[in-house]
């Protein structure tokens, strides 16, 4: 005679939840404590290297959203000069196709992710805002030379949540 449904499963469940009380917490205290993002993180902002860009507009062609606007003119030495380079990051889906398609490695994705703003207009980034500068952090997405310089990503696997050896 087998006894079933007398509460053994319930007791087991209670035991599991009780065990979890003594495990380390896995949450992060976000504004104070920030995790290192992936080296290939597709972050908020595009970073544009003016010196490398030839104004070929491959990025604009590859963008699924049609977000990138490039206006070029012919400069004195018969090369394109980028007059206008504008990205509407409010409509950007951060797929990274523009970065992948850039033949001159002039476009990078950013590493930042905290860019809420009160106005939609603020999300349209102009040439000056996009330009590679001291405050800009570039992501290693499709740019192995940048990727190797970035710190290791925090993984839940090696930090918290690991099961204690029972």
């Amino acid at each position, binding site marked *: 005679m087998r006894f*079933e*449904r*007398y*509460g053994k499963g319930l007791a087991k469940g*209670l035991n599991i939840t009780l065990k979890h009380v003594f495990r*380390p*917490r*896995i*949450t992060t205290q976000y504004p104070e404590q920030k995790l290192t993002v992936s080296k290939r993180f597709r972050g908020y902002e595009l970073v544009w290297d003016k010196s490398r860009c030839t104004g070929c507009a491959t990025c604009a062609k590859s963008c699924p959203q049609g977000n990138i606007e490039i206006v070029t003119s012919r400069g004195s030495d018969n090369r394109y000069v980028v007059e206008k380079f504008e990205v509407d990051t409010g409509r950007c889906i951060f797929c990274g196709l523009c970065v992948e398609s850039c033949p001159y490695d002039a476009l990078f994705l950013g590493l930042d992710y905290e860019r809420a703003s009160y106005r939609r207009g603020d999300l349209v980034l102009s040439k000056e805002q996009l330009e590679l500068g001291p405050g800009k952090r570039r992501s290693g997405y499709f740019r192995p030379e940048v990727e190797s310089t970035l710190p290791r990503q925090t993984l839940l696997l090696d930090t918290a949540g690991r099961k204690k050896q029972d």
Partner: protein
Amino acid sequence: MSFWPLDNYWAHFAVFATVILAFVVIGVMAFIYVERRGFGPFQLRRGPNRAGPFGVLQPIADAIKVLLKEDIVPAGADRAVHFLAPVVVFLPVLLIFAVVPFHGKLGGLIPNLNIGILYVVAVSALGVVGLFMAGWGSNNKYSLISAMRVVAAMISYEMPLVLSIIGVVVIVGSLSMNDIVTGHQVPFFLLTPLGFLIFLASSMAEINRGPFDLLEADSEIVAGFHIEYSGMKFAMFYLAEYGHALAMSAIAATVFLKGWVGPADDYLGGLWFVAKTLLIFVLLIWFRITFPRLRIDQLMGFAWKFLFPAALINLLVIGIEEVAFDGDIPWWVLFINFAVAGGLILAWSKLFKLGGGRVEVAV
């Protein structure tokens, strides 16, 4: 009670009315904090920790937020019923505490009321009316379903609840809360383990918590009876819900855990009472966090086919013991009772069939 300055009836009344109000409001705040914070470790997170040190001000922040919200009465609602429901729900919660002995010497409002436990059971059942009013008055189908569930579940679970308490009453020979506390040298959760389990299960159903929170059932009927309530009225429901949990924990602590009795209870009696209440509440949190919800027919089946017969048998066993030992049950009877409880649960689970299930409906 010679040193007690409040021999005057009205002074006594005034003091304890204040104590009860303060106890309920602070207790509810503490319970909300304990529950929300207590969920944290069970779920590998921290729980609220932003408002004040360790998040202790969280309930206050919640209260302020809720009170500042707009009070919305849905079109087509029965305005009077909709307005009165929160009051009717909350009032019995306060009334229950009238007979709870907070402390041995200092007592409570009327801890020696000779029908104490009967009063508790009677008053706590009053809340159903309020819940039904809320469900009916909101003019919402979800809340109506919830109201129907409330009435069915509450009435069913009164039975085992009362029967499990009667077991204790039989041993003590008195209905007064104070007598129950001092009734036996062994705490009743050891002496009548089955009664304690039944009481715990049915009080969880009674206060709509844990696996029995059918009337709120947020994944099914959204929020049940208080779906159309906001602002102050919602706060009343929230207060009543946790107040009811507090009341049931307090009753369980008084009846089954010897209430204020503990080392140095001349001075620390109140503290023991609070600690035991909290212990029961933590147990309830633990159950709530682990179990899925029952279905309505299973809920009723559990009450009528499992808890009710078990409570009757429990009562019978206690009655036989009471007669056999001529009203003075020795402490070692608890071993017999444990064996009976274990055997009964095992055997009954074999017999117990939930039934219910699919109903054939015409295409």
